[in-house]
């Protein structure tokens, strides 16, 4: 008995994913123009501009890990495989944005402080987080059984996310760094942002956020396609046996 295999076409036209893609394509050049037009910082001169991407990248990194965490909790409570797709998307995007955040941060640090790396609390936290989540990727890749894979990913995601504030808190026992505090705060080197700089930051947030949204949807779609491929392969094997 042959199973009818239905083929779902990838969305064309005004799918959310396509909207995000084109919005990203348009918003990035605009954000770049804003960044180039923003005034030089008095002390940091030209290098300060990378900050407009650095901050949003780190926020997206955190957001990704939060998505992973929420997916983990949901999987734990429901054991529904669709949450596994959400978890992977959060995990992988988180590692990606952590790397972007660290690279942009290191470039900034090189010009602002003369060294690519300092053991500043925020830098330390982000780098530890990146290591944690890279080990999460390793955990996933060394499990065969998909159910177990999802279960272990969920448990690790929950533990890893709860650990983040603890990591940040523990870095106070590191020698003090000099990461600038952008908004408020009473330690570090405050960096004043005024008028146009705020606007630029906002534009960059939108650009990075759109890219993030598009990547997230793409990764989830990829996960769904992977699942579909697996089940079709199973269906085909089933037919061969008949």
């Amino acid at each position: 008995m042959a199973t009818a295999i239905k083929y779902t076409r990838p969305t064309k036209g005004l799918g959310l994913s396509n909207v995000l893609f084109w919005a990203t394509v348009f918003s990035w050049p605009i954000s770049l123009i804003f960044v180039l037009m923003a005034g030089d910082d008095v002390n940091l001169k030209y290098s300060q501009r990378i900050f407009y991407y650095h901050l949003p990248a780190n926020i997206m990194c955190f957001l990704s890990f939060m998505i992973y965490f929420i997916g983990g909790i949901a999987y734990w409570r429901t054991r529904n495989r669709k949450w596994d797709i959400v978890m992977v998307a959060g995990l992988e995007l988180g590692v990606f944005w952590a790397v972007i955040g660290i690279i942009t941060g290191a470039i900034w640090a090189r010009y602002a402080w003369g060294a690519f790396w300092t053991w500043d609390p925020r830098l330390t936290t982000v780098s530890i987080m990146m290591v944690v989540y890279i080990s999460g990727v390793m955990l996933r890749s060394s499990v065969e059984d998909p159910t177990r894979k999802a279960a272990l990913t969920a448990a690790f995601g929950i533990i890893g996310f709860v650990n983040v504030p603890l990591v940040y808190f523990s870095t106070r026992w590191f020698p003090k760094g000099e990461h600038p505090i952008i908004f408020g705060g009473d330690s570090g080197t405050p960096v004043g942002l005024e008028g146009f700089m705020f606007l630029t930051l906002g534009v960059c947030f939108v650009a990075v956020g759109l890219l993030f949204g598009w990547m997230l949807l793409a990764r989830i779609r990829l996960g769904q396609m992977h699942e579909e491929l697996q089940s079709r392969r199973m269906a085909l094997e089933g037919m061969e046996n008949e």
Partner: protein
Amino acid sequence: MTNAAHSVMIRAKGLHKNFGNRAVLRGVDLDLRQGEFVTLLGPNGAGKTTLLRILATLARPTSGTIEIAGIALKDARPTIRGLLGVISHQTFLYEDLNAFENLRFYGRLYDVPELEKRIHEVLEKVGLERRAIDRVRTYSRGMQQRLSIARAILHNPPILLLDEPDTGLDRQASNMLSGLIHELAIDGQERSVLMTTHNLERGLAMCDRVVVLAGGKMVADRAATGLTADELQQFYFDSVSRGR
């Protein structure tokens, strides 16, 4: 349940189990009555072990319901585990502890009353009382499997789940094991037994009913009375090929 002698000990309905996208069980229904010995046959990969692992609470079904002794499995997993005795081809024993210590440990986990007395009782039953203080490491495979049976019946479970208990045993040990299992099944009270095996002949010798699992579905279910080994062989291959 008016008639206790025929009450249903295991009732599984519409069990599905997927490993990722691979469907291992595709809607299995199974009833096991009190005092009944059912042999579960099926080719490799049919889902026999998965079914037993689900009944033993080691794995969760993707969908479907299980009632054990009238209690829904998902509501009372720890309680239900106390009603089950599981024997698999793995012994679950600690090789660096002796037989007595192994049983005492499991006895504590199962809240067995008058534990020491009970341990001596089951050790005698499986013929190991004289080796009770030897480390399990020094036991032969057959002796380990006998101790494994002692472990499984220590808490006097009304249901036994046996997953290919004779794997890796030589003929003699295997004969002895069959005798032991048979004895346990009729031992005083009405134990229900569900056993998977590759050995059709041996499976038939002990059971009241044969069920065949193929491709994740129950493809046959019939009483074993009056069935000869050859007939069973034929019946088995017919039902497996029909199931595909």
